[in-house]
């Protein structure tokens, strides 16, 4: 199996501090991976090593079949990068900048048509504005546009939606779905927004204490972490909330006892947020065994 990303026992040490202590994961073509984790967990370090901007201390890394520490220009042309914060090219106009940056990809493949790209990220009406006059959200859309202008096979997104309003966030999610559905772009993104992770990711990796403590789909993680669900109902105008290990059996029993007087029934599986919090808390209080939900 040829993986787009193949990371084995990746280690990074700054001075005497181990930031990454054995990170391993893989990604297949067209997969969307989300890297979650508390601040300082090593998300940005990991992504920068994969982008080829940072030299690792140890471990094996293959990105599109190449070690990013020795990736040449042709390899670079197959990747797209959206880093956390940009203030660059303030004097440039949006359309002009995208047209210029797209030209670097011409020897490798046809870049996005600038007008189509502006339409896709929702910047058409700002095409001739100077970059410094864009709002925070518009600037971020431009960053995403620059990241994909060369039609990358692999896209790195470091907190792409920070500062987005809900509408911009939804637009961005549409862009991501378009990229993965139509062009089979592989995406590695970091975010603090668990809802976003759940919505976008085929697979979620949780990074804490320098290692991956969970790897699986949102659903798999919740199942594997806690089978517990929360059951809410009301009876005779009174509301009840009860945790249940086996929600189905619990509800069956509930109806057997009270039948038609049960109203407003609601069964809620542990949310990704609950799972995430529990996992990170466990990891911070002594290492639990790595939790790997086996993908189907």
């Amino acid at each position: 199996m040829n993986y787009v990303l193949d990371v084995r026992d990746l280690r990074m040490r700054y001075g005497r501090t181990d930031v990454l202590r054995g990170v391993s994961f893989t990604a297949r073509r067209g997969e969307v991976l989300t890297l979650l984790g508390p601040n300082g967990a090593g998300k940005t370090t990991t992504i920068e090593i994969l982008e080829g901007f940072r030299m690792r201390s140890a471990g094996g890394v293959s990105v599109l079949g190449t070690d990013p520490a020795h990736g040449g220009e042709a390899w670079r042309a197959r990747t797209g990068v959206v880093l956390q914060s940009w203030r660059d090219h303030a004097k440039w106009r949006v359309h002009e900048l995208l047209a210029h940056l797209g030209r670097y990809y011409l020897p490798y493949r046809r870049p996005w048509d600038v007008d189509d790209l502006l339409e896709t990220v929702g910047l058409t009406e700002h095409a001739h504005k100077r970059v410094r006059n864009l709002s925070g959200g518009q600037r971020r859309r431009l960053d995403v546009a620059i990241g994909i202008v060369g039609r990358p096979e692999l896209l790195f997104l470091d907190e792409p939606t920070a500062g987005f309003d809900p509408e911009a966030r939804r637009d961005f999610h549409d862009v991501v779905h378009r990229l993965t559905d139509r062009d089979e772009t592989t995406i590695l993104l970091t975010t603090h927004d668990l809802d976003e992770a759940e919505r976008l990711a085929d697979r979620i990796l949780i990074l804490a204490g320098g290692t991956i403590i969970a790897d699986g789909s949102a659903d798999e993680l919740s199942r594997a972490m806690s089978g517990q669900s929360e059951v809410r109902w009301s009876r005779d105008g009174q509301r009840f909330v009860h945790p249940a290990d086996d929600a189905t059996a619990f509800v069956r029993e509930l109806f057997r006892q009270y039948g038609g007087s049960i109203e407003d029934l609601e069964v809620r599986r542990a949310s990704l947020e609950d799972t995430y919090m529990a996992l990170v808390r466990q990891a911070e209080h002594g290492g639990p065994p790595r939790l790997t939900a086996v993908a189907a």
Partner: protein
Amino acid sequence: MNPALAAARTGVSRGRIEFKQTMTTPGDVIAITILMGGFIAAMIWTRHTHVPGTHFSLGTTMLVSVLGLNIVVYGVITMGDLLVAEREDGTLLRAKAIPNGMLGYLLGKVVNVSGQIAFALAITLLTGAFLFTGLAIGSPGSWLTLAWVLVLGLLATLPLGAVLGSLFPSQRSAGGPMLLLLAGLAAISGIFYPITHLPVVLQWIGQVFPLYWLGLGMRSALLPNAMAVVEVGHSWRHLATFAVLSAWAVAGLALAPGDERQG
């Protein structure tokens, strides 16, 4: 097309866009105008003073020497400043994230700053042609000398500026100290006054740096031949000018930031 060649072309077009932006950004234009205005005021002030031992205008000599100074101001300081600022704001990292982006970035910078130098030289020369007497701008030889001194000057200063720009840690520490250093250097490089009136030790120090040779080269191009009499060895020393500027160019190009991605 060869990717590096394509990127080089893209870099040149990048330089043209950047130059246009510089010339249409009020803050940048004001900075350029103040710098140029200051020099021109100093020249006008000394227009009727004579270079010691001659009957030649000190102002005219200064005007010609300032052409050389301009090359260093823009080639080293503006270039260095831009690199420091654009490393801070992420432009350099952006260039690294794009195939052959660093090549295009650096070439663009060279084209942009060269454009600014050409602009400053043209304005200074135009001022000189109208307000000053004694400029030897009638012969093709003058322009030929000016051309090779200019080209060698760009090669000696731009890579040096890029190197200094990549050494300075943050934006705040770059422009000010470099400008102060240059002001001190200008004082011992014969830009405002003939170097032969300085203590020999200072003369030697001045002659290590490209600034002295750029001023000398410009004077050799645009002043009457007789004015060589106030120079070291009573000569324009073209061979030495060529050698020293070439040495700086080679050193700068050897050290210039290449394609190193990992910082």
